[in-house]
């Protein structure tokens, strides 16, 4: 009876010590891409060179993604005058559900449709939702995996810092 209880105690302590890592700092230029947008005209990333860009990979079937959208809309509205833009990349192969959801919950920032998952692969999307923040020079600066209430504070701090560059 000694071995299991000692090990169990050690494991529970170990499990509690494991710290979650949600925001990481990647490096290098953000991969270029061009996708069809909801507005009609295709949109490419280099249209936004010189601005701070936040790309949010989302899907209508993803709960935390839907929860995050109103917050992203607020960020876009607030920082747009300072040279910032939010881009929503919808990862669904069939855009019908996403279009339906956006009709009920509209946003003003560009929504692009990555129906072939090319951009998701390009950015190695490893969780839903995923958010990358790109600086004015076009380099990747921040990567956020997932969304939890309160993450928007980190977004605010990072955007504010990059917008001042």
């Amino acid at each position, binding site marked *: 009876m000694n071995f299991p209880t000692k090990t169990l105690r050690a494991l529970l302590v170990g*499990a509690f010590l494991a710290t979650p*890592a949600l925001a990481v700092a990647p490096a290098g230029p953000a991969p270029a891409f061009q996708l069809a947008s909801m507005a009609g005209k295709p949109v490419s990333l280099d249209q936004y060179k010189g601005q701070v860009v936040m790309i949010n990979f989302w899907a209508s079937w993803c709960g935390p993604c839907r929860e995050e959208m109103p917050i992203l809309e607020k960020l876009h509205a607030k920082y747009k005058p300072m040279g910032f833009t939010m881009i929503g990349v919808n990862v669904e192969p069939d855009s019908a559900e996403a279009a339906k959801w956006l009709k009920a919950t509209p946003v003003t920032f560009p929504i692009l449709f990555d129906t072939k998952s090319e951009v998701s692969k390009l950015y190695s999307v490893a969780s839903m939702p995923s958010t990358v923040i790109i600086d004015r020079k076009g380099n990747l600066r921040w990567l956020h995996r997932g969304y939890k209430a309160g993450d928007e504070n980190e977004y605010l701090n990072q955007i504010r810092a990059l917008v001042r560059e």
Partner: protein
Amino acid sequence: MHALKRFAALALLAIGATGARAAVLAEDRADMMYHRYQGGGITVQGPSVLVRKKFGESLAATANYYVDNISSASIDVVVSGASRYAERREQKSLALEYLRGKTTYSASYTNSKENDYKADTYSLSVSQDMFGDLTTVSFGYSQGLDKIGSSVDPTFKDEIKRRDYRVGVTQVLTRDLLSSFNYEAVTEQGYLQNPYRFMRFLNASGSYSRGPEVFPRTRTSNAGSVMLKYYLPWRAALQGNYRFYTDTWGIIAHTAGIEYTHPLWNRWIFSGSYRYYTQTGSDFWSDLFPRAGYQNFMARDKENSPLVTQTIGLGASYEFPIEWAGSWLKKGSANLHINHMMVDYSKFRDLRAFPPGTATPGTEPLYALDANFLTFYLSLWF
């Protein structure tokens, strides 16, 4: 049992070590259900209410209140000479979940009470998402204490101590196929029989006499199951499952089931299911023993006799338009599931029309049970 405990401890080590990234706790909800079972002279019906609330992003609590209102003139009641009785069983449970990184820890307590039976169960479990959330591994442990009485004998008092170990792995196989493997071992000690049942034996005059059942005071069982669920291209789901069960009483059981789920007309989801169950009886089971005291353990309870159960089910679920409620309600649904169950006993005989002396013992017709049960519930998500 010792080996399993070590395995569980070992696997918890793996859980602690994997990189922590967030998963999510399920949403706040309330479910109100009416359940009804009718068959074999028994009617059991009542409510089941469940409320679940998250506190922040990491903690959630779920409470459930369940009642069985029983009115029984089952074959066992009739044959024992008793008249229809009514009884009420109340069950309350509280569960807490704590999410940290990709690990969910849960603890729960359940209490069940009826006039001659009280049960307390404590449970702990850990669940971990890994390998890009394609795999979920979970471990569970439960401990229970049942206190048994008898309404016919107020001096009768006994108990059962129970331990339950569960391991499960759910694995995403493809974007359309899910699999789940579960193993559960239960070990019990104490009074494991039903104080209202009896066995029967051939007596000297060629008819039968009743005698007390004698069950072992321990029972250890092992069950392993596999489930596959496939997403069909026209938006439907097909699930198949199989479970193998064996225990120290000699019961071997196979369970196989399929379920088809089909959404229609935007707000409706329909389902159909079929379940086949077969078990051998326990080693010490017999419908008619050659004499009193024939062997150390003797049982005649139909639940542990060789039998086959087939159950067919139909379900319909309607998701109501959110505009009905306002912004405090995220989603709501009304659900109805009806089931028809047929149990064929291959050795248990129907003695209701055959008291001692009316037929040659062992030639009475075999018993068969037909029952219908349904659940109707409203689910609200906040």
